[in-house]
């Protein structure tokens, strides 16, 4: 590891004789070989990521509708698309909803997965294996399949959820059409996203918890620290970096809920479950306003980049510690 990571670029010429051959080979190979080896990856990233991003930026400053799509005579209109967007009350409502959606999801995911991780750490071997298997199975469930299943669970007439709720005496849920009511549809999507996200977060936090040395706990206990105090002063400082990483990942991944939303409600009923990526795609591909859609996407990327920067700072700090 250290060989690779130390910043020295050229190797000192004097080396133990046994290694001479390897070293010379290494230095000759370091000519153009590494560049050749990374070339496909770099080209891929340039063509499939940088170019689309640049194209999106470009379109967001152009007048680009169906006509321009066919004739290709788009011209620049400056910040017009962005002003259109920002003066659109619907866009502002969607942005607000995106943040509410993100906040609810992230709080639930982090809270629940911390509890599950702490629980997993305290369980015996058999119980823990069962719990981790259940988590892995949930995590492996494909998104679209899970979405279909949730639609079936919350089916108004034959769904098991309505049946159970009615059975518990909440008769107002008999035949309750979840997806026809905005807040209910929103709640189902939150449930679905949380159900799918907790396993990853919980397992990751659990792996972080297992890295806390047992001696530290023992020492704290000998010093007479309470369970809460041990958690706050021993567990938390060690787990915090991983916790922050998972937190920022979950924030960024909120936008992945696009799939669940599109499959289940397409942003409806009305606009009740429309978040930013849904709005962008609706505007661009259904409404053929590619320009405004691209502008909305760029606003999304900008909003995300704050979280992304925090994530990278944490990540690089971790990297340097390794």
């Amino acid at each position, binding site marked *: 590891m250290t060989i*690779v990571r130390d910043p020295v670029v050229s190797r000192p010429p004097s080396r133990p004789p046994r290694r001479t051959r*390897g070293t010379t080979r*290494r230095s000759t*190979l370091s000519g153009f070989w*590494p560049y050749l*080896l*990374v070339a496909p*990856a770099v080209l*891929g*990233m340039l063509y*499939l*990521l940088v*170019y689309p*991003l640049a194209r*999106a930026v470009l*379109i967001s400053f152009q007048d680009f509708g169906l006509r321009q799509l066919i004739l290709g005579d788009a011209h620049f209109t400056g910040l017009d698309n962005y002003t259109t967007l920002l003066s659109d009350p619907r866009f502002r409502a969607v942005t607000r909803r995106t943040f509410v959606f993100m906040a609810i999801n992230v709080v639930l995911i982090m809270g629940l997965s911390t509890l*599950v991780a702490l*629980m997993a750490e305290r369980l015996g071997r058999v119980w823990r294996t*069962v*719990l981790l298997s*259940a*988590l*892995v*199975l*949930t995590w*492996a*469930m*494909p*998104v*679209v*399949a899970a979405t*279909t*299943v*949730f639609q*079936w*669970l919350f*089916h108004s007439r*034959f769904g098991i959820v309505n049946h159970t709720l009615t059975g518990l005496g909440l008769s107002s849920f008999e035949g309750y059409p979840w997806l026809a009511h905005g807040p209910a549809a929103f709640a189902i999507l939150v449930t679905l996203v949380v*159900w799918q996200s907790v*396993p990853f977060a919980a397992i*990751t936090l659990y*792996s972080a918890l297992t890295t806390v040395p047992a001696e530290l706990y023992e020492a704290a206990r000998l010093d007479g620290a309470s369970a809460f105090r041990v958690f706050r002063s021993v567990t938390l400082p060690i787990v915090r970096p*991983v916790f922050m*990483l998972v937190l920022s990942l979950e924030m960024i991944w909120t*936008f992945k809920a696009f*799939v669940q939303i*599109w499959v289940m409600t397409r942003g409806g009923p009305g606009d009740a479950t429309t978040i930013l*990526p849904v709005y*962008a*795609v609706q505007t*661009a*591909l259904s409404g053929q306003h*590619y320009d405004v*859609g*691209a502008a909305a*996407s760029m606003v999304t990327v900008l909003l995300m980049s704050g979280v992304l920067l925090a994530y*990278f700072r944490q*990540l690089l700090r971790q*990297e340097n510690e*390794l």
Partner: protein
Amino acid sequence: MTTPRALRRLPLHIAATVTVLLCLFPVYWMVTTAFRPNRDIQSDHPRLLPRSWTLDHFRRAVDADGFGLFWRNSLLVTLGAVLLALVVALGASFAVARMRWRGRRQFMLMVFIAQMAPWESLIIPVYLISRDTGMLDRLPTLTLIYFMMTLPFTIVVLRGFIATIPAELEESAQVDGCTRFGAFRHVAFPLLAPGLMATSLFGYITAWNEFAYANFLIIKQQDNRTLPVWLSSFQNTFGTDWGATMAASTLFALPALVIFLLLQRHVTSGFAAGAVKG
């Protein structure tokens, strides 16, 4: 001594049971619905345990228009993306972990950024670019995009694995007359097996599940659709046939569920190694 201890741990075990049930119930409900006869599905008193079993729903799902075709499409796209990502990432991570060159740090930074690429926000330009280059409605387009989705993670993980294999091992093989790449192939490659498995698993999951691009880039050529898109439109095909819908969902989810249960140990330990530390 044992009784109070069991009692003390009771809340913990209750909480664990509830968690396991909450995790598994949707999966359980999907599988059992798929096996229930229709009169049980459309009953006002659903039962937790099905009274009788049937394979009718699976038959209807498999016989549905194009099921085999979409299965094949998904498989081709997934395999293509995973293999391409593995080959490209092996080269790149070897260069990063074992060679010294100007721009190596910048390259890794680029990979880390690419790993966080906002794919949901790139649908529009990718659609337009594919349209301009005549790549709409074609499976290779999807293969390329899935390749790019999995590549960064694959590079990061493989680099980590290569870095943990002592370079001295290869050097001594070189002293014994192997070429640089021969040494890598015979000495390091076998040690890479867990890394290769973890990354191809991740690639498989990503590509097999991907919905957004498959949905918006395959429009006119319906024969080139993949399984997730087909499943999402299942209700249009089958109306309110929930038995068949759940059977199709089960068939779609089955490979992932089986693989993950079998490799559970590796998956959980791989999480910390790859996904989070980057």
